[in-house]
């Protein structure tokens, strides 16, 4: 429904302070998912944790890896040098750039350490649901 609370939840989760007010006021956190809107249609898009992740194929530093156990495609910001090849490779437009002096690529990491990703938890309308063992780790409904 395009409230974008998922983005807020994601930003906070991926901030230093992990506090909704402090994170926003002290940092410029970036959401790893994006709500797209066009008239009444809206949906959130984020990394599909593809079986064959083009971003990983394209990553020049080896910063992007796919965990064979969980299927999660991870991006190691420490290794990333910000060449944006992954952004060009991702057909879903699901990789973004962090703010700051040395921006790096950022993407959905399925919120390690959380039972339910922050975006799913933040969604007030169950438009975002976590689906286990399905091909896309996080599937989205139009909630139309």
């Amino acid at each position, binding site marked *: 429904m395009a409230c974008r609370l998922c983005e807020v939840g994601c930003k906070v989760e991926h901030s230093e302070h992990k506090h909704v007010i402090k994170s926003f006021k002290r940092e410029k956190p970036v959401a790893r998912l994006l709500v797209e809107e066009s008239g009444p249609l809206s949906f959130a898009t984020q990394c599909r944790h593809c079986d*064959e992740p083009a*971003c990983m*194929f*394209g990553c020049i*530093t080896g910063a992007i890896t796919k965990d064979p156990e969980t299927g999660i495609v991870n991006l190691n910001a420490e290794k990333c040098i*910000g060449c944006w090849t992954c*952004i*060009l490779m991702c*057909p879903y437009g699901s990789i973004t750039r962090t703010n700051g002096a040395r921006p790096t690529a950022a993407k959905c990491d399925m919120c390690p350490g959380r039972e339910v990703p922050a975006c799913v938890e933040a969604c007030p309308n169950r438009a975002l649901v976590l689906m286990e063992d399905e091909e*896309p780790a996080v599937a989205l409904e139009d909630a139309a």
Partner: protein
Amino acid sequence: MKTFTYAIIGNSVAAIGAIEAIRSVDRTGSIGLFSDEPHHVYSRPLITHYLAGEVSEEKMLYRPPDFYERYGVQAFLGAQVESVEFENRRLQTAGGESAFEKLLISVGGRPIVPKIAGGDLRGVFTMNTWDDAREMKSYLPAVRSAMVLGGGLTGLKTAEALVEAGVRVTVVELAERVLSMLLDRRSAEVVVKQFENQGTRILTGTTISEIRGGECVESASLSDGSTAECQMVVLAIGVTPRLDLVQDTPVRTNRGIFVDRRMETSVPGVFAAGDVAEAYDALLDQNRVLPVLPNAYAGGRVAGLNMAGGERTYDLGASVNSTTFFGYPVVSAGSSAIEEGAEIIEGDDENGYRRFIIQDDRLTGFVMTGEVNRAGIVLDLVRERIPLNGLKDRLLDGIGLIDLPEEIRHKKLRGGTCCHEKH
């Protein structure tokens, strides 16, 4: 004599792509990897960043130090393969002979070194390997200014690295613009501007005619007659596939090693991928040598899957490039520099320059600078040959999944395979 189920010559991205692919299917078949370089697999594009001092030694590694062990690879590093007997399925290194069932040649390319007077002086470098970068780095204390020959990607990234290392740099490019394979005139100007902002001169339409100095480089003369003082010359006019191993063998070559859609050479069981291969370009619908990292990985992966008994075809090959110059992003894809008979949509604002090339209502290539977020959605339009219909007007504003035709959008929202290889 050891017999490997899979032998791989070369130790870069294509090789890793193959290894990871093989191991996703075959956990036991033996893999032997032969590389003339002594290093653990490292990221070749990072060598300029290494030179600039941005990237540490350990971050140069493309895969973790335990990679070979974890993937069950017997790695022969610093072991140059001297020859291959394709009929007998043998390969020779200085250390001995090995046999193989399937072979991948992913030896990459080597820099083209032009014949220039003074080209053998100390201070003349090429930029292709980690060792090249190391040598250059150790030479840097003697360098105040440098001249880079070649305004291609390697030349410019090297120039950028040298600037960041505190060196005054002049780039010399024979063509009328830099990055002429990737960019059009205006986007090339955008790039040049980034260099000029750093005080770097870029000279086009000229070349180095002579390098002067005693033992070491002291100056260089250009074909326009001018001379400039410099302590270093970097030759970066391009790379050419390393074909030594297949010269006069049954392996068919053209500009590179010719491979079919399965990445297999004319010799069954022998595959090639990466910068050495002349593989299929899905956008141009023809084979060509495309030394781009994502293609190397994808090609290596397809080769690996097929080596391990799979049936995959390579459809991801395309001219795609994303890089930054002094932090300013520049991406290009497809026929971005080709524009005959095409419709061009251009925009230039605070978000950067964008250019879209359209033929028969299909996007065939584009360039974006500055704001490049979601460029992958645009690339997918090119790859999937999606009819633009009303999308044309939206290109400059930035396309989201929501703008795509419903059927394609739904597929994307549900799907998650990402890669366009045909299953």
